[in-house]
């Protein structure tokens, strides 16, 4: 350990306002896991209301204020708050900070042989803008009128006329301010990741020798850098609408509850959707690309063979990133944009499915002929493949404007999206946690608990999301507070609500072994050496845990990232930093 010749920093500089990318990565990881859990709890409340509409919530129902539940019976406004905030928290405060902020921060500089990020102080600033932004948004549950309740998309004009008020402290306004913070944090992070990847690669680490994870993070950062600012602009405009009385998104002649709205008018509701989806479609790839990167690392390591089609993977990822800027309006087929625009966007949408299929196929073919080690990270990575496959394939009918007429705004959309993100991305993130845990702590997480966690979660995830696809095909709208009780066409698929809700609550139980495992293994896990998975990439060439500055000597790279089972080499892995004949 080289820590000896570093001066000892005071506690608050070492663990709280640290500029070390590894500490910041862990801060992001713990914060986003807490946010994820919180977002999950909101969803479990919603699932009670959907399974037992209008019935009082047992045990904890009385803890809520009369503004959200009366006698334990959930009010529609509160249900809407839960829905809007579940989406926002999971996407912007949970998955992205975990996938990019945590894994990107911790692993990327290690994998490229860098001592830290290019701008360590900026890195610290990213986290300290992210955290207050997130907390501010959560605090909106406690202001009069409650949190934002117009969906995670905050469509105008609904978002502007719901609980209006020129103060800062209304749910929607706090949502907007929180978003500006979260976006700013992401932008600074993206600048940092890109500069680090371009400038701080170790000698010999050429672009085509980068681990696939680094490529995935690199393209993700470009998406964040270029797609987030338009939403920031949109957020500022909606903020002006709410606070300064402008009408950017309010058309002329709007009548609310029988009263004409007293604004100048002249705005466009469609404009918000364009600005929102210009971010939010690339955002989907921000959610999925780091997951694919993690899965790629773990599959190569546990099949003990190189990734199949490394170059195809890289070029597909770049092409995917580029195309993701040209598909946004496939979320808007039903807005009356016109058939010509629909035709354009459904064409680009079909084109973007090609690189996704190439990536998934390459990962799948990578399994062929490998002697697979079925450890917990590998199980989650393997689980990712079919789940993301279902998520991707169910997206095709939504990408075509004609079937979308039937499926739009139904539970089918929710099922599709969650297959991509929940058993898709979140499984990959779990895989990553199990995989890199030994590098962070020097100990392995328990395999037994890990397997309980995996198989339980795998079954329950499908128990939640598969019935959503069926309900959606039956035409059940995604936004119903009572789950469709009052609709004739929903009756046949109504019992599925209970299946989904019990699956969701059981899924929560299956997270308990994970939470226990995470903390227990820090102190009691099996001790391992610096490279327990016998991996080839540079992140495993550091001492454990990596000291400040990461490497004892600056590494030099001699070969590609996945030299597993190289013919003629003495072991079945040939690390990137090992010279020939060593």
């Amino acid at each position, binding site marked *: 350990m*080289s820590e000896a*010749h*570093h001066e000892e920093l005071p506690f608050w500089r070492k663990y709280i306002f640290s500029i070390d990318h590894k500490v910041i990565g862990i801060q992001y990881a713990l914060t986003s896991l807490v946010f994820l859990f919180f977002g999950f709890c909101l969803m479990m409340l919603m699932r009670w209301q959907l399974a037992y509409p209008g019935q009082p919530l047992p045990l904890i129902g009385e803890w809520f204020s009369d503004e959200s539940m009366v006698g334990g019976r959930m009010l529609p406004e509160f249900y809407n708050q839960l829905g809007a905030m579940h989406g926002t928290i999971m996407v912007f405060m949970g998955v992205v900070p975990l996938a990019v902020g945590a894994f990107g921060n911790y692993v990327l500089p290690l994998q490229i042989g*860098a*001592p*830290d990020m*290019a*701008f*360590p102080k*900026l890195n610290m600033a990213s986290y300290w803008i992210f955290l207050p932004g997130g907390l501010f948004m959560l605090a909106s549950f406690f202001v009069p009128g409650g949190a934002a309740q117009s969906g995670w998309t905050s469509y105008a004009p609904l978002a502007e006329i719901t609980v209006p008020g020129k103060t800062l402290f209304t749910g929607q306004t706090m949502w907007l301010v929180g978003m500006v913070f979260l976006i700013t944090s992401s*932008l600074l992070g*993206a*600048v*940092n990741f*890109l*500069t680090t990847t*371009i*400038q*701080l690669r170790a000698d010999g680490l050429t672009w085509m020798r980068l681990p696939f994870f680094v490529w995935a993070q690199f393209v993700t950062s470009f998406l964040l*850098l*270029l*797609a*987030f*600012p*338009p939403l*920031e*602009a*949109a957020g*500022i*405009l909606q903020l*002006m609408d709410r606070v*300064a*009385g*402008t*009408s*950017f998104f309010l058309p002329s002649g709007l009548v609310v509850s029988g009263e004409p709205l007293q*604004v*100048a*008018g*002249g*705005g*466009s509701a469609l*404009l918000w959707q*364009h*600005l929102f989806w*210009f971010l939010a479609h690339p955002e989907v790839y921000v959610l999925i690309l780091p997951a694919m990167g993690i899965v790629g690392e773990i599959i190569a390591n546990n099949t003990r063979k190189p990734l199949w089609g490394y170059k195809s993977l890289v070029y597909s990822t770049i092409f995917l990133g580029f195309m993701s800027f040209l598909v946004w309006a496939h979320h808007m087929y039903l807005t009356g944009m016109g058939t010509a625009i629909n035709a354009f966007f459904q064409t680009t949408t079909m084109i973007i499915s090609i690189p996704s299929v190439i990536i998934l196929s390459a990962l799948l073919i990578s399994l062929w002929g490998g002697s697979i080690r079925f450890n917990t990270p590998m199980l989650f990575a393997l689980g990712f493949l079919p789940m993301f496959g279902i998520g991707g394939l169910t997206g095709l009918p939504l990408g075509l404007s004609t079937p979308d007429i039937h499926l739009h705004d139904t539970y089918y959309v929710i099922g599709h999206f969650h297959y991509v993100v929940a058993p898709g991305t979140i499984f990959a993130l779990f895989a990553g946690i199990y995989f890199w845990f030994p590098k962070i702590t020097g100990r392995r997480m328990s395999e037994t608990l890990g397997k309980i966690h995996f198989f339980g979660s795998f079954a329950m995830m499908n128990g939640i999301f598969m019935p959503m696809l069926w309900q959606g095909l039956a035409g059940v709208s995604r936004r119903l507070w009572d789950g469709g009780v009052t609709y004739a066409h929903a009756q046949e698929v109504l019992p599925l609500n209970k299946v989904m809700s019990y699956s969701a609550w059981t899924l929560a139980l299956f997270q308990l072994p994970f939470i226990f495992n995470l903390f227990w293994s820090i102190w009691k896990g099996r001790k391992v050496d610096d490279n327990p998975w016998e991996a080839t990439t540079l992140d495993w060439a550091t001492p454990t845990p990596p000291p*400040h*500055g*990461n*490497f*004892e*000597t*600056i590494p030099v790279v001699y070969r590609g990232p996945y030299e597993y089972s190289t013919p003629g080499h003495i072991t079945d892995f040939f690390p990137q930093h090992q010279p020939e004949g060593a």
Partner: protein
Amino acid sequence: MSSAAIRYIDSVRPDTGLYNGKLGVWLFLASEAMLFGALFSTYALLRVGAPAGTWPVGASVLSVPLATVNTMFLISSTVTMLLAWAACKTRDRAKFKLYLGLTVLLGAVFLAVKLFEYNLKFHHHLYPSTNTFLGLYFTMTGLHGLHVFGGIVVNAYLWGPGSKMWDTAPDQFTNRIETAGLYWHFVDLVWIFLFPVLYLT
């Protein structure tokens, strides 16, 4: 030199030809271009969507002479910014102080004139809520003004306490002036678009 040192802070990486700060600021400016790009797109979309004859001509509401003078101030400040960087390169500290000081001053004058203009509008009961044109005017120039303010803060820091690096880390300091300059030129460029779009059409 321990392995903990981050490379290419004051020297360029051979294969990219850039030092870290310069690449970082260019990437940041790319995102800024998307931010203002979204606002200009908003302007275009709302203007095209407005019923014929309802969109005011900028000059009938806003003061073109004031904005012209202000444009001059901002353009001059980008020249002095460049001269300040040149003074870093020639190691002439007095000139550096003069030119960067002028940059800060001209930026502050620009903001003062802008606030005076805002005040004039408020006097005539013209607010962001009056119509979509004024809403866009206040939002776009307001956000630009915030960027100018940010640039002034950075430049003032580099002129004052930040200039200690003149002697201790001259190369790194010159780089800082260059990156601050890149940002300042961008802010100026945004105004060069805002001026004709809002005032002259």
